């Protein structure tokens, strides 16, 4: 179903809030993977407010859809997303990274309500997602597994082992995203370790590929609904995004892969977030 104007207004509002939350949590955390969290916002918002079958009041509901943030570094975006969706009190995030907090840089699924798995080490999420999808099928369950990878993460050989297995076992109850923000820590992906022709690689591994603007709700939404209906092969949605999206001085600047913000910069960042219309 196409996104209505009303939905669009709400999604944009949620996204604006999440971007401001990312700025706040980065401050409380003392520093975070801010660029890759900001590039992910529209994907998270769309999944958590429109597509995931979840009940935050019952985080372990057996029939819930599963979500795996394979690019676990974006915990600074994932944690406030879960808080805003009602899994836990947002104020708890003031302890992010602090002694004995349930919230560290990479979320621990055994400690954080709503986080289905623990991630952080790159190249692990898609394998677990394939296992979950196989498990759902074996148990005759209709829930889906959604998994978001980073593009730099796709340097990991294990991603391609998992891709091979997903295609082999035809896990069409798994929907994979790649947040293609074009940078890893050391620089542009194509300079550090090129992954292009990226879509062709996924096709060669047996996936149906959908390349979309990862900040467009309409484009993402269409791709997700097509992926949900797909029965021939697993789908990967390559979401072309901008690292640091939504904060002008961070956009497309690899220095903001990871960083911290003082109070002046926080004001500046939030001012830009308030004015920008995204998606």
């Amino acid at each position: 179903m196409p996104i209505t104007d009303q939905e669009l207004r709400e999604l944009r509002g949620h996204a604006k809030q999440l971007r401001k939350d990312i700025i706040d949590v980065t401050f409380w955390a003392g520093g975070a993977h801010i660029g890759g969290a900001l590039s992910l916002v529209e994907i998270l918002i769309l999944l958590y407010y429109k597509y995931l079958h979840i009940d935050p009041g019952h985080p372990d509901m057996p029939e819930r859809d599963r979500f795996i943030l394979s690019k676990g570094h974006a915990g600074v975006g994932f944690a406030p997303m879960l808080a805003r969706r009602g899994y836990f009190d947002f104020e708890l995030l003031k302890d992010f990274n602090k002694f004995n907090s349930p919230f560290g840089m990479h979320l621990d699924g055994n400690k954080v309500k709503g986080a289905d798995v623990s991630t952080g080490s790159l190249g692990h999420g898609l394998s677990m997602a394939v296992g979950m999808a196989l498990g759902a099928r074996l148990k005759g369950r209709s829930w889906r597994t959604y998994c978001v990878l980073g593009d730099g993460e796709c340097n990991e050989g294990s991603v391609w082992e998992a891709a091979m297995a997903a295609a082999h076992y035809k896990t069409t109850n798994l929907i994979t995203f790649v947040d293609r923000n074009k940078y890893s820590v050391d620089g542009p992906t194509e300079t550090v370790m090129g992954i292009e022709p990226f879509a062709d690689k996924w096709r060669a591994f047996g996936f149906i590929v959908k390349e979309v603007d990862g900040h467009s709700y309409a484009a993402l939404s269409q791709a997700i609904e097509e992926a949900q209906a797909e029965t021939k092969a697993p789908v990967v949605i390559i979401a072309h995004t901008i690292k640091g999206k939504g904060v002008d001085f961070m956009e497309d600047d690899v220095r903001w892969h990871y960083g911290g913000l003082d109070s002046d910069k926080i004001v500046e960042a939030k001012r830009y977030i308030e004015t920008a219309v995204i998606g």
Partner: protein
Amino acid sequence: MAVGLTWNVYDANTMTQAEIYGKVLCRLGEENKDIVGLSADLAKSTKIGEFAAMFPDRFFNAGVAEQNMFGMAAGLAKAGLIPFVSTMAVFTTMRAGEQVRTDICYQNLNVKIIATHGGISFGQAGTTHQCTEDIAITRAMANMTVIVPADGIECANAVRACLDINGPVYIRIGRGFEPNCYTTDAYGFEIGKAVEMNPGTDITLICCGITVLQALEAARVLEKSAGISARVINMHTLKPLDGEIIRKAVAETRRIITFEDHNIYGGLGSAVAEVIAEYGKSCAFARVGLPDCFSLVGYPEDLYSHYKLDADGIIEKVKEVMGKDFEDDDSWEDGF
């Protein structure tokens, strides 16, 4: 007239004694529909292939891709299934070591790992397929239970018992050609509780895996030929370790040697040494295993002989340690 033996990888199943593990898994699979199996193109040589043949829908071959296999196992466990994963120990603990540690142990998932070809049991394959580090590695993984069965019968017991633990278990076996030292499975196997296989008062031989049988033979010879009374302990569980049986051995025999098909660093010998050191009472002590080297190539029996892990080597080492001094402590209350 042909010389040699014609056989192929399929026939290997009928040549092994450890196929008992595959059969036990099949029985468990009948009892518990949540059990699933995984292997990485080694279903036949790890015996999990029997489960695969019986429950084709519940078996997933990951192909030659161990990292993905252990990740998939974690995902299956998250979906409420009980994965039994089988591949060689070397690929389990090193190629896929991070998946085992981060995906399975960190999340404390109910995944059972049957790691084959442990130690130098596949001696002819060389270092690439041997694994003399896995006990050290898995012992250091929090949440992991580590079991090294003495033979196929004990392996069957371990495979059954590991289902009572809701968490990761690492069961390390050999290649499957190892002779049995038990004649029955009804000897009271309990995870975390070592078994005294032979009573003794002069020295204690603490063993795991293939060295248990060798130590029993050595103990018989030592008793008869040299009048040395050697206690033999089967330390089948490396974690959690049975510290009580070790402290009792320190107090009662004052001499201990460990024998393991593993590097002397980090494995059984180290684990026992930790208990002795923390106990604070002295005893003569030695570790026998791979002396921090990669093994020579060869058939296992020749290698075990070379590294003093067979009965003759054990006898030689016992005689050496019997001559060692240890500090007497008059304040000891013998009898533990």
